[in-house]
């Protein structure tokens, strides 16, 4: 069982290479074959090759469930926030709008919200989630906290600050050791350009052609 075996999910965005193996493999998962529940954010596409995989972060107190008027989103005892329950989901998309990570997706063809359940079918029988198994870069990893502490330089944290709201998640992200909590400031949104990865800037020096 996911919780009892001590395995946890870790995301290291700095490792992501944007290959989309996670998305391609996600739609091979038995419970939702043909539909990928993970998405890949392309960060400032014209400026950088940076990408970021987004799985459900499985909040301790899931906002998607709080805002659901039909009480259709349930959390398992071991902390996995499930897709909406089909008989209850009314397709209102409150959860889609409320999730701070942009995870739930409303599927019009089935009039239901579906989202990543961390491969509950796999983790519940001792397998790793599909995305974290295939990920070629180790950006998505399912391992014990001890393994991560032994093999990674970054520190695993799971506390986020969205404006005035603190969100704790089951999924960890690996950040530099100086970081305690990820603060998402309003002014960051809308920052859409950078010269940090501009090759022309790197070349401004002697020897340039």
């Amino acid at each position, binding site marked *: 069982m996911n919780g009892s075996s001590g395995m946890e999910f870790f995301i290291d965005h*700095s*490792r*992501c*290479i*944007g*290959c*989309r*193996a996670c*998305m*391609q*493999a996600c*739609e*091979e998962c*038995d*419970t939702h*074959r*043909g539909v990928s529940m993970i998405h890949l954010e392309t960060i400032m*596409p*014209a*400026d*950088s*090759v*940076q*990408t970021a995989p987004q799985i459900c972060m499985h909040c301790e107190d899931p906002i998607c469930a709080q805002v659901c008027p039909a009480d259709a989103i349930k959390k398992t005892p071991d902390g996995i926030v499930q897709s909406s329950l089909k008989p209850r989901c009314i397709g209102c998309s409150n959860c889609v709008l409320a999730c701070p990570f942009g995870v739930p997706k409303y599927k019009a063809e089935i009039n239901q919200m579906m989202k990543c359940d961390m491969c509950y079918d796999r983790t519940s029988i001792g397998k*790793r989630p*599909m995305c974290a*198994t*295939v*990920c*070629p*870069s*180790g950006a998505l990893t399912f391992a014990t906290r001890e393994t991560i502490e032994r*093999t*990674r*330089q970054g520190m695993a944290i799971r506390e986020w600050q969205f404006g005035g709201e603190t969100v704790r998640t089951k999924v960890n992200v690996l950040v530099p050791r100086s970081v305690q909590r990820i603060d998402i400031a309003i002014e960051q949104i809308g920052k859409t350009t950078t*010269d940090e*990865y*501009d*090759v*022309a800037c*790197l*070349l*401004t*020096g*002697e*020897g*340039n*052609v």
Partner: protein
Amino acid sequence: MAKTPLTIPELVAQFGPTLNRIPANGWSAEVEPDRIVKTHCCFCGQQCGIQLKVKDNRVIGFEPWEDFPFNQGRLCPKGVKRYMQDEHPDRLKAPLMRKDGAGFVPVSWNEALDKVAHEIRRIQQTYGNDAFALLGGASLTNEKAYLMGKLARVAVKTANIDYNGRLCMVSAAAASKKIFGIDRAANPWSDIPLAKAILVAGANVAECAPITTNYLWQARENGAKLIVMDPRMTPIARNADLYIPVRSGGDIGVFNGMLHVMIERGWIDREFIARHTTGWEQVEETVRKYTPEYAAKIAGVPAAMIVKAAEIWGPASTSFLLHARGIEHHSKGVQNCLAAINLVVATGRIGREGCGYAMITGQGNGQGGREQGQKCDQLPGARDIENPEHRKYIAGVWGVTEESIPHKGLSMVPILEAIHAGKIKGLLAISCNPMVSLPDNAYMRDAYEKLEFFAQIDFFLSETARYADVVLAGSLMEEDEGTTTNVEGRVIHHQKVVDPPGDARVDWKIICDIAARLGVADKFNYASPKEIFDELRVASKGGVSDYYGITWDRIDREKGVFWPCPSPDHPGTPRLYEGHRFNHLDGKAHFQPVEWQPAAEETDSEYPIILTTGRVVSHYLSGTQTRRIGALVDQYPQPLCEMHPLLAGKLGITEGDFVTVESRRGSVTVRASVIKTIRPDTVFVPYHWPLDRAANNMTVRAIDPISNIPEYKICAVRVRKVPPPQDAISELEVQAGGVR
């Protein structure tokens, strides 16, 4: 033969490429597979372990294989979706014969094979034995690669056999042989995370060898400093400790400049050099003038970057060099690799844990495919076809006289040039798609149109097979059994997962059938690929790439065995050159001095922009397989021309505009992708597409004089904004060469 028997759109309508989007049993997960087969990915040289699910002799899905040591379950999107090439509507299920006006019609195997044998003999009787050529490929198993070489020398009796590894690995191979005497990655990948300095030169690891990414990142977790050289800021370059946006073709500036600084600062292992190498004095003399400032002019980067690279590489306690097509695909490809490897030898950091280098083999069996004798200058065991002792040994294995084995023939591009010149009249090919993959594509198409007879063994009607007189319906990797040798030199076992569909045959049987019709059935009398491997073991015995001690049983038991493995009780050799024993007669590594020289075609006022070509993560080589898989085409549907906003601004081009990229030889019309992550003097177009979307329409037909690799990585182009194209080719689906 001349033109295709129908128009291209007519052939596309009949044979694709069309997209397979739905698994063989639909998306349902309710079907329990009959079997789950542990095998390997059919695509790149990493040859990741993967499990394929089978129901009723159909591949219906995959499951990661977490116990296979190289990739531990990791896969790229190509590996994940590979199973969608099975049960594909475009799959060839019977031999085809060309009929003008009617296209291709199915025929019996007897009719097809008789025709092939008849044409081989007719052409050879009319024009001489060498007027019939063979082309193999580096996606073939070792067994099939071995058979192709034997077919050429024993059955067809032509000198002219070569393979598409000539377009891929040969510069690295030649350089390694010159310096160390062995053509193989020197280390297993498990040494990468143990290195404290890593230099990745001309390798877009994230897209072309994705699984290697984790090894690099693990090295960095262990404190390694990573240097990446590439004209484009690739995904691994973004996070490197030092990214050097080298001008395509300027790599020697960086390598020699680094060595210059290392000598100046005393970061050279002079004791190692004295005891274990030759030729250092000439190298030291050559790099004297490569001051950071001089080197920077060649490399097209600030001198400070070269100094910093030397500061990372020079004093490191352990180090690993990785290089790939970015430095190899040049008319000075061998020289580029030599200059890179000089950096390894000068520090003595080779042949021990965490110390060494590797070329990142591109094709599935890029390593093994070049050892078993399908190269124009080689016999099995990576033996030299002009060495009398080697010839005699192989003649003994094959039961033929030494004199009957043809001598060195032409390599791949010269074979096409000889076809163009009318000297070679017939061709039998397998596992290659030159209508996408060869440079100066219009010239190559002319050559194919001049053939009197052309037969292709293939599983789909590739862009090249469209020109064939006979198409022999062969097998996908999962429909046959055999071995390949991965990027590390690890020999692995591909299981037969399903039978070929319809009347299609396994490739090795087709090759044996042709040999039989040429009168040498007794020499191609195998009951299974295992028997071919057992003969290959003997043929390789005592050679550089010695497989004699490797058996299929051992491979399964040990999850791969590294060559050389000269006897059944030998453990195999994951790491070469331990104890600093190199494979030249004197036991030493041979430094090679390298001077930079310009590319065959540099930019000028008429064609002022550098074009460099390469790959994207969701496609494999010429796209024959991946352009038929919906999920992979959706990920990257059509080639884009990457350009920097500074260049785009100068040309009046904005994101998404159609542009024509044009060289002296040809052009493509594609959409522009305006991004800051490429040098402003360079544009990039990936090469996986055919026809008016083929990057190789523009590339230059110049080859390295030693390795004969084409110069895919640099030629001169101009770029202009154009209206959306509206011709019949552009109207095709994107996977067939259209645009959206």
